[in-house]
């Protein structure tokens, strides 16, 4: 056999070379045949359940091409009558179970099921929904789940478990009852979901979608009493265009501003301005932590709310390592609520701040109580990139033909550092641009961020600043981030500064963006952001005159008390399942018993709270205290840094051990 034949196979008679494709499906796609799939995603493990990718293999019959290794000489057919029939049947079965509600579905025109039904020319469907309607889950501001639209491909489950290592959703039940759900059928808002929205991005149908704020925003615009301002995230400008036929990565900044003005926004500002503030505060904090000797290093970035929530659920012991900086969205909100009412001749109550973000987690972030002033959120509504596209289309604006307009001042002026925030690695680079000059008095050289050998998903850079060498790591994907938190715990983490973004490629791959899992498109968006950076006059946040003015007029000293008040925040530990408690009561509660509550949350658990609880339980049993003492275990007292945490009556003990707890119980018993 000559070399050529060794490495080729035949797709419908056409010769195709096998390179390093992991499966037959990829080889067939390389031959420009777009086989349909639901359950195949190149970044996820194989599932092989949807059976749409079937092909006929000479000598083997019908196989799922996603689950077959390509071998030289294989003869593959992709479009025989039998295959067409089988695919049709699969689709018809799915459609028969599917709510016929395309016109009102958030995924209308972007749905894979709809698309395939069209491609296969399916005209009638025997409507036959055997199971009862399942309730819709809108328990949270970020995402809506409609399990009735689920085709059980499992893409969301695998993304959440494999790429994010969160595991908030999984298959449950069996037979006709199978569904994808959070634990105990709870809403996503009551479990450890971090609202990254990547499940919605991979979902081929409308079973998980961003929770739309379109109506609220339009109502605010219609209200003559209010002044409505917008802040636009960096990543938006290089992706919104895709919704209107531009190439990925094309910057449509000025049309975007024009569109918002036409829609009735009173002012249009740039979140990149706030990103400049973030750089300054975060770099300041970093320098401080280096100076104090490194106990709070590595410093993790804090601009990704999905990452923050992950840390709060899964790494509560490391919260002191998070930068205390608010994200750019929230820095903007805080500053806007304080300074804009006077500038715009309105009151804080009548100012409506709308953010437009590439992200679903930002919808949740805006509702965090830390970001409220006088009971009102700093950011009132958050739209995604795609929601904005929908509003623009709905208003009938011809996006391509809009006369460009520019951002309003002062909160619309930014440096390039604030723009590159939108891609993975950008925050680190921006922080270096500032910190280097701060420490050495000189402009920073170019930062070379490169992949770390053997550490997939982690990139690193080394920068010397004066006599110090700073090691930085850049990760995207929460599973990668959690590998680094584990290293920090083990004391083996070599980095000083770690940038984390939950989404593939950073915010440019956010779940609010036009959906794409194509690495090329992400690269183009990233290149687009760097092009915008190049095109600006200012590349360093310290050169932004409006930032300087804000410090002078509103914020005060960098890292000072007021800055902390306005631009920084605090974090808290979060339970995995909201409000759960394990009662170990021996008898019916009488209300008279002394309550002893031992934390069994992840962190206390690791610190030995289970042994404590067992010892305590034994003690109470042998001394027959059951009538007087009620022992309970709850899943988090939100003080994980200081576990094990035990509450006895209304007193809380940190770092508790058995003797202290026993002593206290004895004391209370004697006194009563």
């Amino acid at each position, binding site marked *: 056999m000559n070399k050529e034949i060794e490495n080729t196979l035949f797709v419908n008679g056409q010769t195709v070379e096998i390179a390093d494709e992991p499966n037959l499906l990829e080889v067939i796609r390389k031959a420009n045949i777009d086989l349909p799939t639901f359950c195949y995603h190149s970044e996820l493990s194989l599932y092989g359940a949807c059976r749409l990718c079937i092909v006929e293999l000479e000598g083997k019959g019908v196989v799922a091409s996603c689950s077959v290794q390509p071998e030289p000489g294989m003869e593959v057919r992709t479009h025989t009558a039998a295959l067409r029939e089988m695919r049709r049947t699969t689709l018809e079965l799915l459609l028969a179970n599917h709510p016929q509600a395309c016109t009102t579905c958030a995924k209308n025109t972007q749905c894979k099921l709809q698309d395939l039904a069209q491609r296969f020319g399916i005209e009638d469907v025997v409507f036959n929904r055997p199971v009862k309607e399942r309730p819709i889950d809108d328990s949270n501001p970020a995402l809506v789940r409609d399990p009735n639209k689920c085709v059980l491909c499992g893409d969301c489950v695998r993304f959440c*478990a494999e790429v994010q290592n*969160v*595991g*908030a*959703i*999984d*298959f*449950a*039940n*069996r037979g006709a009852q199978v569904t994808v*759900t*959070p*634990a*105990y059928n709870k809403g996503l808002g009551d*479990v*450890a979901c971090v609202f990254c929205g990547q499940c919605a991005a991979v979902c081929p149908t409308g079973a998980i979608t961003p929770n739309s704020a379109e109506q609220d925003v339009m109502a605010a615009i219609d209200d003559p009493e209010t002044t409505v301002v917008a802040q636009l995230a960096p990543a938006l400008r290089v992706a919104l265009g895709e919704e209107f036929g531009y190439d990925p990565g094309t910057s449509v900044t000025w049309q975007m501003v024009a569109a918002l003005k036409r829609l009735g926004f009173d002012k249009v500002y740039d979140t990149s301005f706030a990103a400049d503030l973030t750089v300054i505060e975060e770099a300041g904090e970093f320098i401080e932590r280096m100076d104090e000797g490194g106990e709070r290093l590595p410093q993790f970035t804090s601009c990704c709310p999905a990452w923050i929530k992950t840390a709060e659920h899964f790494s509560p012991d490391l919260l002191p390592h998070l930068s205390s900086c608010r994200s750019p969205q929230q820095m903007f909100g805080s500053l806007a609520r304080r300074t804009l009412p006077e500038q715009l001749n309105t009151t804080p109550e009548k100012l409506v701040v709308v953010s437009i973000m590439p992200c679903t987690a930002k919808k949740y972030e805006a509702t965090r109580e830390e970001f409220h002033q006088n009971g009102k959120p700093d950011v009132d509504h958050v739209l995604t990139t795609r929601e904005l596209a929908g509003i623009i289309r709905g208003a009938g604006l011809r996006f391509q033909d809009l006369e460009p307009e520019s951002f309003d001042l002062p909160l619309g002026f930014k440096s390039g550092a604030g723009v590159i925030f939108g891609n993975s690695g950008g925050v680190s680079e921006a922080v270096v641009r500032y910190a280097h000059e701060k420490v050495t008095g000189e402009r920073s050289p170019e930062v070379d961020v490169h992949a770390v050998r053997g550490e997939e998903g982690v990139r690193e850079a080394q920068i010397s600043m004066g006599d110090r060498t700073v090691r930085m790591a850049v990760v995207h994907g929460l599973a990668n981030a959690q590998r680094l938190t584990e290293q920090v715990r083990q004391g083996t983490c070599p980095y000083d500064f770690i940038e984390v973004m939950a989404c593939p490629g950073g915010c440019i791959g956010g779940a609010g963006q036009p959906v794409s899992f194509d690495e090329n498109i992400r690269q183009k968006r990233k290149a687009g952001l760097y092009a915008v950076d190049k095109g600006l006059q200012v590349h360093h946040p310290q050169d932004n005159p409006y930032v300087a003015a804000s410090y002078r007029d509103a914020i005060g000293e960098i890292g000072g008390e007021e800055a902390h008040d306005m631009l920084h925040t605090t974090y808290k530990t979060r339970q*995995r*399942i909201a409000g*759960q*408690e*394990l*009662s*170990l*009561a*021996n008898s019916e509660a009488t209300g008279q018993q002394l309550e002893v509550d031992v934390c*069994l*949350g*992840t962190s206390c*658990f690791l610190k030995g709270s*289970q042994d404590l*609880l*067992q010892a305590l*339980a*034994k003690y*109470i*049993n042998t001394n027959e205290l*059951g009538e007087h003492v009620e*022992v309970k*275990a709850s*899943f988090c007292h939100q003080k994980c840094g200081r576990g094990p945490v035990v509450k006895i009556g209304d007193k809380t003990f940190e770092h508790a051990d058995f003797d202290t707890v026993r002593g206290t119980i004895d004391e209370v018993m004697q006194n009563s």
Partner: protein
Amino acid sequence: MAVKKFEDVCDILDRQGRNPARLIPVLQEVQKIYGYLPEEVLTFIATSLDLPPARVYGVATFYAHFTLEPKGRYVFRLCDGTACHVKGSSDILNALRDKLGLSEEQDTTSDKMFTVETVSCLGACGLAPVMTVNESVYGQVTPEKATEVIDEIVKNEEDNG
């Protein structure tokens, strides 16, 4: 006794080496202790085995012999295998459910006294239709006989205070 139960759960976890691959045996043994799988206990198991609660919930709802609801003191199991079905087991089922006033979503009475379930085959087809109540087996059951069993239990319970 709840404290004892908790200790037993910890024991089970230790015996299974806190190995996530041993989830199913852990659940089986824990269900023996509680009679069902309480949600909080599932979360505790998830924490101990380092698995997401959603995964543990998925496994617990996949196998028919796991139950997440507490069962009644008296569990009526009615065989719905072919032989019993042919001999009218569904009439018996309806009679039992009517008598106990169970709604469509309910298998257990709200006082947690009775649970009614069907099983696929009790392996006593010669006696069809077959019903078990806890450990006792009843053969050739009729709707009347079945409801009488309930009456008897209620009477006994009352007599014993």
